[in-house]
């Protein structure tokens, strides 16, 4: 998927001015937050579980090459084919090749953010293979002209019921339904047909278990199970950082992932899939492929951003982010929105291509507090800001302003004179009021709030006055 992160400012302005989106974001806002807060109380030692999850994710990343070799060895021994992809284009090439090799006409897909990174659906269509998204949210987006998702686990969080009702009426050519269960039933019936006729299933992978060479898939709808049970070919597309050591580690992570994502104690379906259909088996794919994807991940290993590779894609950081809650996911411009997206997008698509994202945060650390694997997101965002300065990527007026500020601030007399004028000017500007509604020098800052007016004396003046 091509990144539109460069247009973050205009994207978010449009989001703020869109009353339908604002209404839908308000509807969603509290639900995830409240459900998570209740469900984490079921865990006696939630902090200890987070620490354990952090440690086990780090253990793999610190020896990632060796763990990948281990996973490959065991998965291959169980009958899977392990392929590697450097970037999105190579993912597409692999999947299209597999499709051609097995004479595939239709592929049913369970959610895979990596297939979004790769823009896989377009590549499949171009190769004459019909891709069908089967996660309800992803399906809604696909029939709406391949609209991108706005959330990693709730892809249509930005849409309201009305919009979905209109879309189904238009695309399915059925009477317009306004009840959510009726719409869900309609999608179920349309997609059931696809599950039964597709020859290939494509899924992401929540985790790769090295011990058994398995992929673990976590879903609520059951589409993950359909996609990996019915078609004769199954392709797993997943990032190289998704390896975990053992089934015990999977058990630990499963106490955190559903609670952090949807506030469930466990997701309805957790499937641990290993190898191909065995002799006598009545279901399951005859061919299983893993595509292990780099697409920017290898370069993050061993860097100051390595902590980010622990991410288990739960979405808690965006659910709790005041910026995400206000502008929604599309404004971020690429596959991953919210705080994790503001770190991943510059790392995977180039720092210079996502200049505004690390600044799209108040650094309030809500994301850091709720992250199940304790990724210090605000710290990583701050480091990305530093990188921008080091690489001279900030706008010239900002650079000049900060240099000027550094000079003034390191010169006490000058600083004193500057503030002496500033407080008097601001007091005059307030004209006797407590606040200044529009500040000429920072119009954007005062667009959503008022600037408090100073009382007319600097701190130094007041301090000197008190001493005497």
């Amino acid at each position, binding site marked *: 998927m091509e990144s539109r992160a460069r247009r973050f400012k205009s994207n978010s302005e449009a989001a703020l001015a869109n009353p339908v989106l604002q209404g839908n974001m308000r*509807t969603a806002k509290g639900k*995830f937050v409240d459900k998570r807060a209740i469900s984490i109380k*079921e865990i*006696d*030692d939630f902090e200890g579980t987070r620490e354990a*999850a952090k440690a086990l994710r780090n253990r793999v990343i610190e*020896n*990632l*090459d*060796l763990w990948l*070799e281990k996973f490959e060895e065991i998965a291959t021994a*169980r009958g899977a084919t392990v392929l590697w992809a*450097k970037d999105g284009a*190579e993912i597409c090439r692999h999947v299209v090749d597999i499709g051609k090799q097995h004479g595939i006409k239709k592929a049913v897909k369970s959610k895979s953010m990596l297939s979004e990174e790769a823009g896989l659906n377009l590549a499949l269509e171009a190769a004459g293979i019909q891709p069908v998204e089967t*996660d*309800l*949210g992803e399906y809604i987006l696909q029939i709406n002209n391949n609209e991108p998702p706005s959330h990693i686990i*709730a892809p249509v*969080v930005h849409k309201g*019921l009305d919009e979905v009702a209109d879309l189904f009426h238009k695309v399915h050519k059925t009477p317009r339904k306004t009840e*959510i269960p009726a*719409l869900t*039933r309609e999608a*179920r019936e349309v997609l*059931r047909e696809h599950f039964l006729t597709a020859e290939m299933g494509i899924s992401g992978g929540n985790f790769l278990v*090295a011990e*058994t060479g*398995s992929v673990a898939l976590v879903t*609520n*709808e*059951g*589409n993950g199970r359909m996609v990996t049970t*019915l078609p004769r070919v199954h392709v797993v597309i997943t990032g190289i950082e998704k390896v975990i*050591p*053992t*089934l015990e*580690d*999977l*058990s*630990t992570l*499963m*106490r955190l992932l559903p609670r952090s994502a*949807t506030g469930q*104690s*466990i997701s*309805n*379906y*957790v*499937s*641990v*899939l290993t190898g*191909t259909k065995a002799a006598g088996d*009545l*279901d*399951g794919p005859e061919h299983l492929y893993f595509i*292990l994807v*780099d697409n920017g991940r*290898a370069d993050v*290993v*061993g860097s100051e951003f390595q902590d980010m590779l622990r991410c288990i894609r739960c979405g808690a950081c965006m659910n709790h982010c005041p910026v995400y809650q206000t502008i929604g996911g599309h404004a971020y411009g690429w596959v991953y929105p919210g705080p994790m997206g503001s770190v991943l997008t510059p790392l995977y698509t180039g720092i210079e291509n996502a200049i505004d994202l690390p600044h799209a945060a108040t650094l309030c650390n809500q994301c850091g507090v709720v992250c199940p694997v304790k990724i210090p997101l605000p710290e990583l965002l701050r480091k990305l800001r530093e990188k921008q300065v080091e690489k001279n990527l900030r706008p010239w007026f900002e650079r000049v302003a900060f240099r000027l500020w550094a000079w003034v601030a390191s010169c006490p007399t000058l600083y004193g004179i500057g503030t002496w004028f500033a407080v008097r000017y601001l007091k005059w500007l307030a004209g006797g009021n407590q606040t200044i509604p529009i500040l000429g020098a920072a119009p954007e800052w005062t667009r959503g709030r008022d600037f408090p007016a100073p009382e007319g004396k600097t701190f130094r003046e007041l301090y000197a006055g008190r001493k005497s």
Partner: protein
Amino acid sequence: MTSREDILARVRAKLNRNPDNAATGRVAIEATLAARSQGPRPAVNPQKSALVERLIEKSLAYSSTVDQVATAAEAPAAVARYLTGLNLPLKAVVWPELARLDWSGSGLAVQARGAQDVDLVGITGCFCAIAETGTLMLCGSPDTPATVSLLPETHIAFVPASRIVSGMEEGFALARAELGQLPRAVNFISGPSRTGDIEQTIVLGAHGPYRVHLVLLTEE
């Protein structure tokens, strides 16, 4: 250079890999795999009666329904009662493993095979059940096909009380002990399939069953 080599070479360079630390790293990996260390666990009372109680409580919380009979021999009658209560036909697809039960004695017409789209009711056993979260653990095999718990709108599962364990860890330990290696498909199922994609409103019966009904076999 293949993509595999390219990716691994870059990871190795980033990790300052050399023959010495590779050897140490491999030893550490084997140690981690052998240790199978567990994270903190929520307290689950391991006594049989407590496990039964917790499984029931958590299953209900996940929108499943629960019935109890003493043995598998009584289970077909319980199934017939349940289906009659819902006005569903007394017709089902069952796991081949369960074919030996006397189904026709309770007026049920069953076929032992994998499920197809037209099957309305699927009846399975389970490999074990997990009290911590009210979860069924199903292991696929020719006698226990995965489709039976997936395609029909109603899924009925028999759960012997002796097969209820505390957590996922015990389920995996049981699989290692009894099956040697993991079968192709291990499915953990907690209640009916659901979606919250439209306006975060939970709807049951997304792609899988609308109803999950547990028949606890208290004496087995």
